[in-house]
């Protein structure tokens, strides 16, 4: 365990940014957003960023390749460039765990090389979540925000930032800043963990359970009449999928330029009517089917394919951003087990 005074954090970020691109949550008018560190930037006190850090590994839009066409001829041009190491600082444990969910998709064979390359070069520095909000329910999924993982874990306590490297990547980062860190014991960190756990016990969603969901529940849940009412007001705007740290659906499209064609991918949403539309037909005709797909995927299909792991980390972003105040918690309460 190492420590550094909070007042010395600018020196730490300056030092790190000599070697790495460092991204950290910074306050903007409408909330905290990840930003590339520049001298003078201050780490936000807000713990839940507006968008999740999945952007760093699975960007909202990403050029994949280029085509040169001339007459009937085509050339495929690989435009990927070697990636440098970079640091994402201040990731809460819900978001750290979202990468386990995304890794299962993108790194399973055949691996997605675009994602894999970024994962290989990205260093996650987590921070303990001392200010969970009333929309948080990470504990529902067994996530402990007081014990963050990632390549380096950090805790803020008593004007001091405590750092613990967990991986070789984390150790390598520590070695860059070891000159400005001092060794520390666990006492303050343990006190901070206790404090966090007391806050967690007071959260309104602390009793939310996944009972009634998980692998093997398709037949039981798919035709439940509640889907009609739950989805009735859904606008199909897709906001929930865009702020979600675990939503991973994407589209592949081409863009014609003066100099050939760029093939790019961008986030897509199962909430959109075009998502499954074919010239031959449409398997999900109304918003009810699309809505059901999103929650069945997170709570049943994904666990079925990934050893019981849910594709939700309880970050609560969808609770805050849905324009009609519909969300996964309401779905779990309506269709699940003991969720009165």
């Amino acid at each position, binding site marked *: 365990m190492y420590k550094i005074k909070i007042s010395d954090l600018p020196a730490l970020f300056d030092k790190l940014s000599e070697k790495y691109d460092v991204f950290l949550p910074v306050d903007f008018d409408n909330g905290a957003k990840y930003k590339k560190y520049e001298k003078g930037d201050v780490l936000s006190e807000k713990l839940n960023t507006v968008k999740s850090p999945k952007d760093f590994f699975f960007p909202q839009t990403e050029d994949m390749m280029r085509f040169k066409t001339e007459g009937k001829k085509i050339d495929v041009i690989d435009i990927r460039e070697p990636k440098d190491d970079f640091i994402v600082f201040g990731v809460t444990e819900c978001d750290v765990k979202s990468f386990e969910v995304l890794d299962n998709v993108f790194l399973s064979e055949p691996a997605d*090389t675009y994602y894999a390359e970024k994962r290989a070069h990205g260093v996650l520095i987590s921070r303990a979540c001392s200010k969970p909000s009333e929309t948080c329910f990470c504990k529902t999924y067994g996530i402990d925000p007081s014990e963050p993982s990632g390549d380096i874990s950090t805790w803020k306590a008593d004007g001091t930032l405590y750092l613990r490297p967990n991986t070789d990547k984390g150790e390598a980062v520590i070695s860059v800043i070891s000159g400005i860190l001092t060794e520390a014991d666990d006492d303050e960190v343990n006190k901070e963990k206790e404090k966090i756990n007391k806050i967690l016990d007071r959260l309104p969603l602390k009793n939310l359970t996944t009972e009634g969901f998980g692998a093997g529940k398709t037949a039981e849940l798919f035709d439940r009449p509640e889907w009609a009412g739950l989805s009735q007001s859904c606008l199909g705007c897709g906001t929930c999928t865009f702020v979600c740290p675990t939503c991973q659906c994407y589209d592949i499209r081409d863009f014609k330029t003066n100099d050939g064609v760029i*093939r790019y991918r961008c986030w897509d949403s*199962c909430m959109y009517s075009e998502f499954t539309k074919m010239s031959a037909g449409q398997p999900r005709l109304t918003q009810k089917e699309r809505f059901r797909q999103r929650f069945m995927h997170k709570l049943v299909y994904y666990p079925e394919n990934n050893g019981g792991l849910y594709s939700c980390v309880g970050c609560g972003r969808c609770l805050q951003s849905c324009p009609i105040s519909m969300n996964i918690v309401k779905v779990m309460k309506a269709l699940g087990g003991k969720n009165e």
Partner: protein
Amino acid sequence: MNNHEALMPLVAEIVDIRVDTPDVKTFTVLTPDGKKPFDHMPGQCAMVSAPGVGEAMFSITSSPTDTEKMEFSIKRCGGFTEYLHGVDVGQQITVRGPYGRPFPVDTEFKGKNLLFIAGGIGLAPLRSVINYCRDKKDDYGKIDIVYGSRSKDDLVDYAEILNEWCSDKNVNVHLTIDREQEGWDGHVGFVPNYVSELGFDTNRIGIICGPPIMIKFTLGNLTKLGFEKTQIYTTMELRMKCGIGKCGRCNIGSKYVCKDGPVFRFDELDELPDEY
């Protein structure tokens, strides 16, 4: 599959275009240096693309036993297929694959009598496995093919059916068209009914592909003849973007058609929600 570059396509050239029906053409595709783009197993698919126009999944209709070339039979029914129907020989496109789970030709089909049932363009995904099993006739029993379409002009691969399949003594071909037509002296009627009329015994494996309504009624009629769902297969199609189970749109319940399918046995489909 070229695993580490699963989304990166190969350039291929259309070297032959055969007009099968008013809205189906069969494209023969080779790499620019004249080779078959990649190997596959019967029932697998490939992503075909014209950069700037579109990319879509098609079944590979040529048999793996054809080591010279790759063929796709494509019906004109949307923007991208409209484009393909307008190109000339020599046009380059891109292909990537193969994707998906093939027909179990080396396991469950081995040594069995096979009954192929197709409607319209539904013959295209079956042509690969039909020709594979014809070419390896010692490995399989008798082959029956029931194939129907709206009219005789809509039968895909008609020349190959007449010249090769009908003269193969290991194969029985049963053709039908929906309505009477001048110049047609064969069977008239819908495929599901024709299957019942032909009254196959259950000592065979059924493989069905066609429009959803035709599949539904054919399955029902096979069941009446005593077939179990565990001995009937089909191949599915849903919208796809990646082909490797990651873009998230071709799932039926927890199964992705692009990697867990496109070939399914009907008892497997029974376990999935009815959303296809």
